[in-house]
């Protein structure tokens, strides 16, 4: 089979299977519902109900400390949207979403393409995945210590090997956020490589063999085989990344030490929500934090829908 032999599947499949008799269908639906019930009850009680309560609370002035909520309509929303610091925290979140996202996706593809032909790829994949197993809080703290400009591992090593001119104030106001983003990229790459590898490994090797015989370059193989045949997986990766990026919290929270938050200029939207709802100092404002969370929810929902539209392609069957 050649590259041009990859079939484009019809958009709708499965229409040819004969339907089961009606009485069997009803019985199987009852069984399905029965099995779904416990999960549905727990999910509703633990997730849906509090989420609905949060939307309701966003319309109240409420500190969350046992006080009586006072209805104030959309004031929390108006305040959040006019709040410069909330907007700048969103800018930081979007920086993570786009810059780290692009870096993670490019690195994942490069590593996957390299590892595909490797003999010890299982081991390498495990090594790459390892950072994702460790708590982000721990990784953030360690990265912070490594990059400390006064005695951190990075500057100390640079000085030791005679590259003192490359030392930087890594955690200073200019570099600290790029360093946080680098750390997050390092942490997530292994996870996405693992997902992508799983997708790429499904691709039958004879496509690549055929491409090799036809004299295709690596780029051509990537563009014409890997990318189209793993597109579904890439779509899932994109959605997972949007969700992870939008809720970026613990890495930044712990980067300069737990309990000692970094400058507000580095906060992401999730961190801003946390400090509003569970104040570090002063009185908390849970109602206001809930309004911010609802705004975040709407933005995530819009982004996820957008990504799904953008990623929509005719499915390729192989």
């Amino acid at each position: 089979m050649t590259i041009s032999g990859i079939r484009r599947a019809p958009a709708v499949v499965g229409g040819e299977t004969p339907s089961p008799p009606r009485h069997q269908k009803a019985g199987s639906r009852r069984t399905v519902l029965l099995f779904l019930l416990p999960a549905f009850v727990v999910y509703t009680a633990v997730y849906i109900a509090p989420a609905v309560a949060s939307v309701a609370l966003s319309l109240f002035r409420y500190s969350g400390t046992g006080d009586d909520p006072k209805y104030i309509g959309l004031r929390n929303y108006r305040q959040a949207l006019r709040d410069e610091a909330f907007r700048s925290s969103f800018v930081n979140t979007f920086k993570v979403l786009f810059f780290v996202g692009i870096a993670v996706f490019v690195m994942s593809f490069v590593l996957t393409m390299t590892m595909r032909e490797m003999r010890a790829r299982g081991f390498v994949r495990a090594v790459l995945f390892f950072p994702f197993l460790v708590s982000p809080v721990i990784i953030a703290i360690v990265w912070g210590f490594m990059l400390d400009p006064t005695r951190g591992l990075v500057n100390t090593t640079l000085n030791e090997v005679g590259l003192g001119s490359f030392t930087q104030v890594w955690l200073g106001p200019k570099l600290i956020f790029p360093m946080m983003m680098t750390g997050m990229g390092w942490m997530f790459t292994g996870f996405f490589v693992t997902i992508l590898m799983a997708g790429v490994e499904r691709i039958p090797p004879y496509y690549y063999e055929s491409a090799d015989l036809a004299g295709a370059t690596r780029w051509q193989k990537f563009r014409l085989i890997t990318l189209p045949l793993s597109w579904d997986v890439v779509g899932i990766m994109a959605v997972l990344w949007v969700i992870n990026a939008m809720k970026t919290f613990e890495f930044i929270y712990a980067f300069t030490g737990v309990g000692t938050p970094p400058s507000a200029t580095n906060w992401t939207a999730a961190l801003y929500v946390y400090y509003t709802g569970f104040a570090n100092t002063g009185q908390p404002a849970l109602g206001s934090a809930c309004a911010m969370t609802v705004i975040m929810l709407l933005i995530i929902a819009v982004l996820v829908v957008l990504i799904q539209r953008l990623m929509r392609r005719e499915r390729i069957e192989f």
Partner: protein
Amino acid sequence: MRKRMRILAAGAAAAVLAGTLAACGSSGSMGTEDSKTITYWSTWNKGEPQQQVIQQAIGSFTKETGIKVRAQFSGRQVMKQVDTANNTSKVPDLVDDSSESLLSAANSGVLQGVDAVYGRSVPGESKTVAQVIPPASVKFLKDDKGQYALVPYQTLVTSLWFNDKMMQKIGATPPKTFDELLDTCGKAVAHGMACVADDGTIPDYNAYWLTQLVSRYLGPEWIRKAAADKTGQTWRDPKFLAAAQALEKLVKGKGNMLSGYQGSKLPAGQQAWSQNKALYLLMGSWAASDTKNYAASGFDYDSVTFPSVPNGQMSVDSQSVGFGITKKAKNPAAAQKFIAYFMSKRWMSELSSKAGVIPSRPDVPAPATLASVQKQLADAPVVTRYLDGVPSIYPNYWTNVFDVADDQLFFGETSPEKFVDKLVSSSKSYWASHS
């Protein structure tokens, strides 16, 4: 398959989002018991010296009064737990934390006034609690309703710390004025060390320098008034600019600041100071206990009140750690009794000798490393509230407006004039959206 993937993705998205939202609506709970028992949630962790002293006091208290104390040592986030528990009926009777934290809780309606404790006799002594704590130490401890939010047992003061031996080695004496401080900086730099160490990733530590200078130039409570000005124009006071210019002289002076201080991660900066890499550390009373394990051998801890400026006003910036009683407490009388019991000389002395902190009673001597700080407090013409109380009263303003602008000045990235302009414009914009 794609449809299934999409459902999976949508499901994952919904789960995460619901989780985020759910965090908004949930609450925790813990229990209290009968009238012979009080429940106490503490700011200390198990094993910390203060915890050990309090635990010992609980043992003696139960033995002497028959009242049991169910203690839960929760750590520094204790008031977040108490705030949440206050949505239920299961709250502790007794809590302890920093004065700023307890004042905020009192103003949120989580704590009740503890004026009655001040009127109680200290067991075994002829004085009341109010009589053993100086009025200067408690004047900032009243909530919005004018009631005391807490009874302090430990005092913390912001001081200019240095190694006495190093001061002598560079041929300097502790500075009394800011100009003298700059002179000593010159001597320190000439001896191959920086003048000031700081962990620049902690904005509040950076703010100590400017707020202390402002309290010298403009007096106590000025920052609070300026922060509350919705036009931001109060920051245009020429004396405020003078304070910013004085700070610029320090941070722009060649070699004055420890290299990399802008990005120093706690505790790197303060440890570098304790290894004689810098002469000064402007820090709370925990400076000595936090650094003693890393300090250069023979490090002789000493401190002075932040120096004065011409025609300036002297004051000491202070905060406390103390006990508060929750509004929903089941057994407030027993909690009051325990607080008065802990304020006795015996337990205050234990705090000083075993936990190495300054007890709130001035008639109990502080440990040797903090003797100078206790004297600063006793000699202070005025005691001011920690950072003028702005981080607690206007928390969002403090972190998003003041700290952000102050960092730029303290890191030498802006001029004092531009700093003032920025503070004025950011304040105006902040208050426009937070009226």
